[in-house]
């Protein structure tokens, strides 16, 4: 096994630039994604008011109370052009007849101009639906109140209506029907969820997986160079070949994750919490699992090119499922959440974040570590069988 380890280190010394480029690229991408995740970006929504009525003005006024977007009034043609040019996330068209529809107890119709369906347009639809429902409700309340008072006393109907409407709006503003009070149940003294910390951890794990899988995939290059068979007829056993390759791939992966985390600390202010040992334990388990996964993938394919084609598909999809790109807390789909449990990334992130964000101790990493080791052993035993059977 020593011969194989020395050989791999020798080759690493000669081909060091591959490791260097991979690490550098990981750092750059982690920086790009981490920086964009941390920006206070607010998309712009253009509002085309074709009705130009009191009610359309009320809609615009209600929209401006919502901080999710920046709103500005625009002409229809200008709005279409800006949405097409990606200068605005979408445009809201208040069609002519809004006031008439509301007054006649008909459903008001609002249009949205968008080039694609995304999280912004979906959020906008929800906001509009909520605002219009609330507004129509307020108008009905004000109208009924004004009608009632008007029947009793001969007072100006419009004045009563406006006062009643404003009171209804005020009530929604300051006396919310439900008050939510929350208490966080954490055992440690963490700072709580932080998007930048999550991005750095997620992307560091995501990019390091490529290095690890391609490092163990060197076994396939042994076959390409015909050295695999030559080693097999030497006194070095198959187990020693696999063992040597696994050890070096593990070390390479661990060093790279280490570099990315250290760079995260000094370049982006990543705070890994006070329990560094716990983080290291999770990282060791994670790198072991991904090394074994790389062995498994190397056993599935015949050549290094096939591995290069398969790896991005597997790693990107499992990283998306496992929460490397975004926190799993925002995912509501139960199938996706269930699937995330079979990805190593989910458990590694959960373990590291339990320390870095929520200040947990070693107890917080026991289950993630055990799950990772279980997955690693499964990949390892299957991978060894596949590689040996060739």
């Amino acid at each position: 096994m020593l011969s194989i380890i020395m050989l791999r280190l020798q080759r690493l010394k000669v081909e060091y630039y591959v490791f260097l480029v991979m690490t550098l690229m990981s750092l750059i991408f982690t920086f790009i994604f981490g920086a964009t995740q941390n920006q206070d970006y607010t998309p712009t929504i253009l509002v085309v008011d074709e009705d130009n009525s009191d009610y359309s003005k009320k809609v615009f006024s209600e929209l401006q109370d919502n901080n999710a977007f920046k709103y500005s009034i625009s002409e229809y043609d200008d709005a279409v052009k800006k949405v097409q040019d990606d200068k605005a996330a979408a445009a809201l068209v208040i069609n002519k007849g809004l006031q008439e529809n509301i007054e006649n107890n008909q459903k008001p119709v609002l249009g949205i101009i968008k080039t694609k369906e995304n999280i912004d347009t979906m959020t906008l639809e929800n906001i509009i639906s909520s605002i219009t429902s609330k507004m129509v409700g307020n108008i009905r309340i004000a109208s009924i109140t004004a009608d009632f008072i008007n029947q009793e006393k001969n007072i100006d109907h419009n004045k009563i209506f406006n006062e009643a409407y404003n009171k209804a709006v005020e009530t929604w503003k300051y006396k919310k029907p439900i008050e939510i009070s929350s208490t966080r149940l954490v055992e440690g003294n963490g700072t709580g969820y932080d998007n930048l910390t999550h991005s750095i951890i997620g992307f560091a794990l995501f990019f390091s997986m490529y290095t690890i899988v391609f490092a163990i995939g060197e076994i396939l290059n042994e076959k390409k160079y015909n050295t695999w068979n030559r080693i097999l007829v030497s006194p070095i056993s198959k187990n020693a070949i696999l063992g040597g390759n696994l050890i070096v791939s593990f070390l390479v992966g661990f060093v790279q994750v280490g570099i990315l985390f250290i760079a995260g600390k000094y370049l982006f202010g990543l705070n890994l919490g006070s329990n560094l040992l716990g983080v290291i334990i999770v990282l060791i388990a994670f790198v072991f699992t991904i090394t074994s996964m790389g062995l498994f993938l190397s056993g599935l394919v015949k050549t290094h090119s096939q591995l290069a084609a398969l790896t991005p598909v597997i790693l990107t999809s499992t990283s998306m499922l496992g929460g490397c790109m975004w926190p799993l807390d925002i995912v509501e789909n139960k199938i996706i959440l269930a699937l995330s449990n079979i990805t190593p990334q989910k458990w590694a992130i959960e373990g590291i974040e339990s320390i870095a964000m929520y200040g947990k101790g070693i107890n917080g990493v026991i289950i993630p570590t055990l799950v990772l080791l279980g997955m690693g052993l499964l990949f390892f035993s299957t991978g060894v069988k596949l590689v040996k059977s060739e």
Partner: protein
Amino acid sequence: MALLEVNNLKKYFKEVKAVDGISFKVERGEVFGLLGPNGAGKSTTISMISTLFKPNEGDIKYKNVSIIDNPSAIQQKLGVVPQEIALYPTLSGYENLKFWGHAYGLRGKELSNRIEEVSEIIGIKDRLKDKIEKYSGGMKRRINIGAALLHNPEILIMDEPTVGIDPQSRNHILDTVLELNKKGMTIIYTSHYMEEVEYLCTRVSIMDKGNIIASGTQEELLEIVKGKKKINLRFDKISDNLIDRINSIDYIENVDVHDDEIILTTQNGEDIFKDLIAKSSETENSILSIDIKKPNLEAVFLHLTGRALRD
């Protein structure tokens, strides 16, 4: 007791009988040749002797100990030169030799000394620091051989070691083989180049389609075609009609066509020119050259299989 003994060895790949029950012995200190065309089963046989494949049937004994269940009995004693270049292209010649020496248990000063000695034997000392990917084909072949010599093996197996190289490197390799053999190394040499086997080997087994069709010393093998002549004919063009007519000459034993050449064996040489000229003029083919050769191992193969060795 033979150094290596192969008994009724069989290896099947699904339906293909790559090796179909062959037996032979290799004596200490000899250069034993396995001669046969591509696909005859030579490399599969070598792979089984070098413990890469397990046979479906049969046994291989090294010093009377079976290596099928106990491969480690022979691995340290064996040097294997594979048919393909099996080296790390991004490492230098020195780094490659260092790794292969280390793999066979050499360390420290002993390893450095052996790298020095072997690089001299293979004549590549000046280029040891260069990366393999910068070597010529012949130099790669030489270092491919060198990697198998570092641990000074008792048996050296060479599987078609001269494929695709220049004549100068080829001659160097052949002389190296003879030199190693003179120093006492037992060598198993496979090739489909008849002249290499004739030049190097004391005993030869001729393989075809997974079987050994003849075995013995070169003299014993040539006895098979004693009195026969091997004639190489070149025509301006070769037609099926011409081949049929040559085949119809009753004393011609084998006719084999290879590119623009017809190779035949015959017992009778007296009327051959007259008959061949007659047959060619019947078909309006012109003879460009007639080359009568002393019977050699290729003639033996042609006689036994009806095909030239190059097919």
